[in-house]
């Protein structure tokens, strides 16, 4: 999971934040620091609220308390009360959508899942279930910490407003006009188009993101089924508890041993609840990276899009230049209907040709501008995207390795409990 807010966060990075949308002015922070170095961020509570929704219908939803506290370097023992704002899940979604649109070259941290997926039998898929709400609270805090420790994202002023201004935040977000960009982005990303020369590294990353998604889905699905079965094994032992207890009632010498063995069987059956709850934490860690894979894929797709637009613009420029050539020299190289009609109906007047030539020159000038812009856009995306993808890869390797280690730790704990219970049971059986 992401670093705790108090710890030193991600190393400093490049200073080239000038011009990035929404970044805070340099007077407000030191060079290269992230928001997380300056403030603690926690999502501490969850509460149920009722209100009217957009279509004036009564609804119940959960709000989460986001607390922030400045880390005052000089203030020893000076512990001001935290600022706090209440946010609901949809507001987090809004923030994330804004970030995705505004920083298309960044692998934006994902939110915890909207609906419980890969559930095993016992877990409720109900969004109002307290366990689900609790895990979501943890996930939301994790999201904020990841964003606030990101070298680029943490400078965003909308993020800052999200953390500090409860009311009016939504209006500020909408004022950025990101919504329009969001719609066109969605459309573009889902369209199919062929790119001639995509950056190889991005294509490999895209392929990797697909693989990661697929592997993690399969893994999570299989894990859920194993958890379900393990639950069954442990719980059935509770039946031993009941039967031994009943049986001990009809026995004389055997009674005590049976009775106490039965208690240990009950304890064994009960122990699975905590074990599996801990394992959910592991599943959540994997889920985060399942959703991260989507974000990674989006960066690659954006590259394809900018590259495609550049190629289109270049192509357009070339054909305009060819048109100019034809008009200037009279030599028709390419087939065109206008050319055909000229052949059939005779050529046009010189004045008309002049006018058309002038028009084409203007279009070429425009086209060259477009190509320049698109080239810059494309190059910037590739450059920044590659940096962030690299950062992401290192974070992923570290986090997932930690997750696997934690899993092993959990298994060890489970085994130790098992040894304890069955050793105790054996002692009881010896007394039978």
């Amino acid at each position: 999971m992401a670093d705790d807010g108090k710890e030193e966060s991600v190393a400093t990075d490049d200073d080239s934040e000038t011009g990035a949308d929404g970044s805070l002015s340099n007077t407000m922070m030191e060079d290269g620091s992230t928001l997380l170095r300056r403030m603690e961020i926690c999502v501490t509570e969850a509460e149920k609220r009722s209100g009217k929704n957009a279509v004036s219908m009564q609804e119940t939803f959960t709000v989460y308390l986001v607390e922030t506290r400045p880390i005052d370097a000089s203030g020893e023992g000076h512990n001001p009360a935290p600022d706090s704002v209440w946010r609901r899940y949809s507001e987090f979604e809004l923030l994330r959508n804004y970030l995705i649109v505004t920083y298309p070259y960044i692998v934006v941290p994902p939110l915890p899942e909207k609906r419980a997926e890969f559930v095993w039998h016992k877990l409720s898929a109900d969004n109002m279930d307290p366990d689900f709400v609790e895990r979501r609270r943890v996930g939301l805090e994790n999201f904020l910490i990841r964003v606030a420790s990101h070298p680029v994202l943490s400078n965003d002023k909308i993020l800052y407003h999200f953390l500090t201004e409860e009311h009016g935040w939504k209006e500020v977000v909408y004022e950025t006009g990101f919504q329009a960009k969001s719609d066109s982005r969605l459309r573009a990303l889902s369209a199919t188009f062929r790119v001639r020369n995509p950056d190889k590294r991005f294509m490999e990353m895209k392929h990797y993101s697909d693989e990661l998604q697929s592997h993690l889905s399969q893994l999570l699905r299989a894990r859920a089924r194993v958890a379900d079965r393990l639950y069954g094994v442990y719980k059935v032992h509770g039946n031993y508890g009941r039967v031994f207890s009943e049986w001990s009632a009809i026995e004389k010498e055997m009674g005590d041993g049976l009775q106490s063995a039965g208690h240990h069987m009950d304890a064994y059956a009960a122990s699975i609840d905590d074990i599996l709850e801990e394992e959910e934490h592991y599943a959540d860690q994997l889920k985060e990276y399942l959703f991260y894979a989507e974000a990674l894929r989006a960066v690659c797709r954006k590259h394809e899009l900018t590259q495609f637009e550049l190629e289109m613009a270049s192509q357009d420029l070339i054909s305009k230049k060819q048109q100019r050539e034809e008009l200037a020299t009279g030599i028709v190289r390419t087939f065109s209907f206008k050319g055909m009609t000229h052949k059939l109906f005779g050529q046009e007047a010189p004045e008309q040709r002049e006018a058309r030539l002038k028009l084409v020159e203007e279009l070429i000038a425009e086209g060259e501008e477009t190509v320049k812009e698109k080239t810059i856009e494309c190059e910037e995306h590739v450059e920044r995207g590659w940096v962030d993808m690299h950062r992401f890869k290192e974070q992923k390797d570290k986090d997932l390795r930690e997750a696997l280690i934690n899993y092993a730790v959990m298994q060890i704990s489970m085994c130790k409990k098992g040894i304890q219970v069955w050793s105790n049971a054996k002692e009881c059986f010896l007394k039978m």
Partner: protein
Amino acid sequence: MSGQAVPADFSEHMLDLDEDEDLEVFSKNTSLADGSPMPNSPSSMVNQYRLEEDEEQADPNNKDIFITVDNPESHVTAIETFIMYRVVTKTTRSEFDSCEYEVRRRYQDFLWLRSRLEENHPTLIVHPLPEKFVMKGMVERFNDDFIETRRRALHRFLNKISEHPILSYGEHFKAFLTAEDLAPHKKQGPGFLSRMGETVRAVANSVRGLRSRPEEFTVMQEYAENFSNKICSVDRVTQRIIKEQREYLDELKQYSPTYTQWVESEEDLAEPLKGMASCMEHCGKETEEQIHHLSDSLLPILHEYVLCAETLKAVMRRRDNIQAEFETKNEALLSRKGDQEAGWQLQEEVDGLADRVELANNALRGDWSRWLSSMRTDLRSAFVSSAEKNVEYYEKCLAVWESFLLSQREESGEQKEGDSS
């Protein structure tokens, strides 16, 4: 062993059989082997027949007969196919001509032996045989697992009989262990039909003609019922656990490959992922072993005691029948006043039946405590062994995960050194 002083075989009084010549016949002379007169009161008879606990817990060093059942082989004839088991006996007992015997027996032969033992000792608790075939879980009779499970049960059966202070000294038992060909010993005679009749009567729940059952036997009866319920429940729960474990193992086998598949697209993560997959595979193997222990060791013992519980109930019914027979005849005697000749004959019959009741009750009393003790030992050891197996399972899995953890921490330690250098 004191068993030799106990005239427990009163078959001739029981079922009106025509005894075979080679059957041991106990006369009506009710004096003990050492010449002292038999006590008259029932309660003092209890002392004669009660077998001490430590005697019944046969000290292995004092064991004078060792029996093994092994080597199942398929036998094919024109009519049928069946399995023959080798039965090897090593003994120092004087009534055996040799000290070592080896014979081949089929399941039917075991059935024969047990039914003779029950006939001859209707109120002794004869250990059950494995069932003819098991409904659930087994597909065909000649499945290897089935044969092995049956072999073990047959082995336990013969050993239980050999440890029994009365049953192990019977003629039928000796013949079973020593005769090359059992066929001559199997001549049934009318006894077969009587046995059928007895069985039918035994099945009926309420015994006609029984006036009042002594309190101690009612207590036993209730215990038999309750024990039967409980042991059946334990058996069922165990079966359920095995089922759940199997399903868990199936899912686990699907789960570990998902880590292996993921390895292919990772670089730095490849090694820990491989480690995870390997850990899970190991744990899967341990789970398989655990399942085997449950189904091959624990479940058969539980199942035997389920059958024992049925035997207990049958023994209680047979005892009731014996008492009922006596009471019916006795009533007839008491209500009849007229004919003196017939009256004396009836009196003799009634006396005989009264003795029969006494002997039956005493045999049961003695065997009851022996059986309870034996049951306690068997079940205790079965549960202890299962608990040990579970501890072992968790210990092995623990070792697997600990070594994985160690390897990961070593690696990250190396990495840290690499970063700082």
